[in-house]
């Protein structure tokens, strides 16, 4: 108002011209700013999407690599252990056996039988390592309890598990995925954490299935996990991520509030009961 009161008629023209020009520049500037800013945000989002794609490629590669390693291990087990055992049994049961005396024949048959028993045991072990029979027949709870009992039985670490609500089993495929993830986590804990105990708990809350593993050794927090997931190391962790992605699950690594132990929480949507 002061400006208007002290400005003469020609001054008004100047204010009008300058003001209009200023407003025009401001409007155009604002439009250009919005368009440029949005382009910058879009480029940033595209960069994030590219990074996510690279991460997915990395996970896929890890999954393929792990599958290949598993196949190689299987091939090695069969070739190095079962192969020589069966070849030895064949040697005991050769054509000349009929020409030998009865005591030697009995001895050879006994030896061959021993070797075949060993081979059966070996094949059974390989088969169990591929698909634990407890998991297939009695479900995740029994399989995990069995696994923890075996670990605890070794006497080096105290392992325990408790399922709070698992009356309705998850689908077989989901159970297998969860079991593999737990196996991988336990394997990592045993290998790297140097902890004195591992404790697993399970519960269902708000339509979701939860598994939590506690240990008191060296562990990871979510930032470490994500960092390892994006790097070229940590094949097992990538495998966990890709497995959980299949069942729409999440995993969260954190340190307890008391800072005395680490906890890993697996979360996945609970589906229809197992039929």
């Amino acid at each position, binding site marked *: 108002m002061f400006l208007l009161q002290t400005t003469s008629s020609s001054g008004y023209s100047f204010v009008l011209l300058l003001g209009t020009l200023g407003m025009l520049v401001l409007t155009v500037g604002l439009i250009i700013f919005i368009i440029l800013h*949005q382009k910058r945000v879009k480029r940033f989002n595209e960069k994030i999407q590219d990074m996510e794609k690279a991460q997915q490629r990395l996970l896929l590669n890890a999954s393929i690599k792990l599958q290949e390693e598993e196949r190689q291990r299987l091939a090695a087990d069969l070739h190095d252990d079962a192969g020589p055992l069966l070849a030895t049994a064949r040697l005991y049961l050769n054509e000349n056996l009929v020409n030998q005396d009865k005591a030697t024949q009995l001895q050879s048959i006994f030896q061959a039988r021993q070797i075949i028993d060993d081979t059966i045991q070996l094949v059974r072990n390989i088969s169990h390592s591929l698909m634990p029979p407890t998991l297939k027949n009695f479900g995740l709870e029994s399989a995990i309890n069995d696994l923890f009992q075996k670990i605890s039985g070794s006497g080096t670490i105290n392992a325990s598990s408790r399922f709070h609500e698992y009356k309705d089993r998850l689908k077989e495929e989901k159970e297998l995925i969860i079991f593999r993830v737990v196996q991988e986590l336990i394997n990592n804990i045993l290998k790297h954490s140097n902890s004195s105990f591992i404790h697993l708990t399970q*519960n269902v809350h708000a339509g979701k299935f939860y598994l939590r593993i506690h240990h008191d050794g060296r562990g990871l927090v979510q930032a470490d996990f994500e960092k390892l997931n994006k790097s070229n190391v940590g094949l097992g962790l990538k495998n966990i991520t890709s497995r959980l992605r299949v069942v729409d699950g999440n995993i969260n690594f954190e340190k307890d509030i008391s800072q005395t132990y680490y906890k890993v929480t697996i979360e996945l949507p609970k589906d229809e009961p197992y039929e």
Partner: protein
Amino acid sequence: MDSVPIGIETILILIFSFYFFQQFLRSNISRNVYEYPSFWLLVGLLIYLGCNFFFNILFNHISIEQIETYWHYTYIPEIIKNIIFTMVIFGYPSYENEIPEKKIRTPDIPNLDLI
């Protein structure tokens, strides 16, 4: 001419436009901002109101001769606004708002913790 109400009205619309643009930029949209008709509607409105703002608020303070001189120039932003509005009405199909996804953190689950 009612300069003061027009001035206040213009300022209110300008504030609303800035608020709209701010919200627009904050939302995580995947399409370009100029693909949205509402953006061009506001651009048209901003050009029209911005260019005529000083003419409107100074209307009672300038002479008739000056009004007659500048009056014709007010048609320029109005024509621009009308062209933009026409383009928006005839040129753009309807669009849907995209709502960004929200991630939910793991809640506290009973019986899962040791303590």
